[in-house]
């Protein structure tokens, strides 16, 4: 077997072990700490004890959502960075979070969630995100051929309009509503509706599998659009499909869990540094490490000022940013040494 493939297996096994470890950690710590060994007996017994309720009602749903959202955001980020060949692109650059936030702010300001029910928030969030995706897509695909750079600019501009409109809503609404909007924006893995969690999980796993139909075009696109065409890749179709898939994925995540930043930007970067630029290993390792990162961030968000909870978006931003800066400075030292 080629050395390259052997290395991929090592990365894959390593990340799966890490994910299992973070899940076990997340199951055991919290307001009530449970021993590692007890967790399995509590879960397998399935009785009405308080421990069982905490695990099955609170921790397991959060972990499942963390795996789904972390993986999906990270996957969405790596796909978009691959298509745009721009390492600064993340799911939110294209206005997806702006659109979702606008939708949710709209629902809260006009009291739709009290009128109809709490499921309205994810629904309006997703509709907002979808509207933005639709706008960006139609504006840039109008001429038939997609121009990647103009698509990116369109996304950034639409994103500005959406977030400014949300500011407008916030400026004119009551402070009570304002509080609701701000908390939703900061993001949380606290989702009472189990079916929404399952939908998100299934969708992110299906997308991971589906993304593998695009590994070849993505690998070819590393050379740029024109050179990928020279290798016989239908770049226009690829770019459209990947854009749609990645942004829908991000839209669902934001609608369910709020704006959890930096996962879609940082994890793909770290993975590129770690496993290299081949999308065959990059896609799955980005998904897994996104899941690990979010599950661990949630542990910190839940425990650091227990019994209160910090918004997870804050944790991902701070930890992610710091870790990323450290990695960057270390790797630039290395390249400096290599060149000198």
């Amino acid at each position, binding site marked *: 077997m*080629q050395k*390259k*493939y052997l290395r991929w297996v090592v990365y894959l096994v390593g990340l799966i072990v890490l994910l299992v470890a973070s899940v076990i950690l997340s199951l055991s710590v919290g307001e009530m700490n449970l021993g590692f060994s007890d967790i399995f007996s509590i879960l397998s017994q399935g009785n009405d004890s308080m421990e069982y309720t905490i695990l099955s009602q609170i921790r397991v749903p959060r972990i499942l959502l963390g795996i789904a959202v972390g993986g999906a955001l990270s996957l969405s980020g790596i796909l978009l960075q691959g298509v745009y060949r721009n390492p600064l692109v993340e799911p939110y650059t294209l206005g997806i979070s702006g659109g979702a936030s606008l939708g949710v702010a709209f629902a809260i300001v006009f009291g739709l969630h009290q009128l109809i029910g709490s499921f309205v928030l994810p629904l309006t969030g997703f509709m907002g995100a979808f509207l933005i995706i639709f706008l960006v897509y139609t504006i840039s695909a109008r001429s038939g051929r997609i121009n990647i750079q103009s698509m990116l600019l369109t996304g950034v501009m639409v994103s500005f309009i959406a977030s400014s409109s949300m500011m407008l809503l916030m400026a004119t609404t009551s402070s009570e509503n304002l509080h609701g909007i701000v908390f939703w924006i900061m993001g949380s893995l606290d989702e009472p509706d189990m079916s929404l969690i399952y939908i998100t999980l299934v969708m992110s796993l299906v997308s991971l599998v589906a993304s*593998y*139909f695009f*590994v*070849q075009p993505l*690998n*070819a696109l*590393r*050379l*740029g659009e*024109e*050179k990928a*065409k*020279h*290798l*016989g*890749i*239908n770049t226009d179709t690829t770019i459209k499909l990947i854009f749609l898939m990645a942004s829908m994925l991000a839209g669902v995540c934001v609608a369910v869990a709020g704006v959890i930043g930096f996962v879609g930007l940082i994890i793909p970067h770290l993975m*590129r540094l770690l496993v*290299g*630029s*081949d999308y*065959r290993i990059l896609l799955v390792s980005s998904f897994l490490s996104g899941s690990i990162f979010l599950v661990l961030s949630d542990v910190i968000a839940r425990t650091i000022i227990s019994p209160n909870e910090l918004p997870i978006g804050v944790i991902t931003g701070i930890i992610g940013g710091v870790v990323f800066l450290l990695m960057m400075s270390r790797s630039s030292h290395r390249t400096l040494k290599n060149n000198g």
Partner: protein
Amino acid sequence: MKPDILNIQNLCCGYPKFQLAEINIDIPKGSFAGIIGPNGSGKTTLFRAITGTLNIKSGTILLGEKDLLSLPPRQHAQNIAIVSQFSDAGDISVEDYVLMGRIPYHSRFSFFESEDDFRIAGKYMEMTDTWRFKDRLMSELSGGEQQLAGIARALTQQPELLLLDEPTSHLDITHQVHILNLLQQLNQELGLSVLMVIHDLNLASEYCDRLILISQGKMHTQGTPEEVLTFQNIEDVYKTVVVTQTNPLSGKPVIFLASQKVLKEIQEKLSNSR
């Protein structure tokens, strides 16, 4: 007479502000051909028309017997391989980069490269002398080495026609000659047809057996270097005074330039002697 590898009839294409019109080119199989012409004459536009990145208004392009314009992208890439000026491949190892030449042959769902892929890529890496740095990253290579890796990748596509966009433009003479000698060797030993866009008229003359001179979006002349590189043709197209001589070693035309100062002095001498 040999059958054509590339036959272009009445080609019109271009951008709103720049058009190529009535291009007719025929290149026999096994040729080493060059497209020459001043900046902005349409060399790159023609190149992009042949590579399929530019939509064509009218005309036909035949590759052997096949109609290039109706060829699906994948088959296009199996028949024509393109080496661009810059590889722009970043953090990809040389071996992975060369292996990308097998992409046109992969089914959409093949995940791992086959033994065949590795064997073919390896063969052409050895032929281009890139095997020794196959594990280095493309971004760590010098310009000449990147160009060699680009040629290895193109050969791995196992094309009938190899297209190169100014393969020597940013290289010193050692690497220029090295790259062109390699291409010449591939042309002779593998019978591979080569077509390159090239700026340097003397290199074009020395290596190509067929030249296509383009001027202001139109065909000017095509033929052997001796037919194309006359001082009349060059002065007409490049608007520059030149002197043509013959290379004592190869017998191919060589083009000399003269500075304005020298030209003035000659003019003065001529008028004085009258």
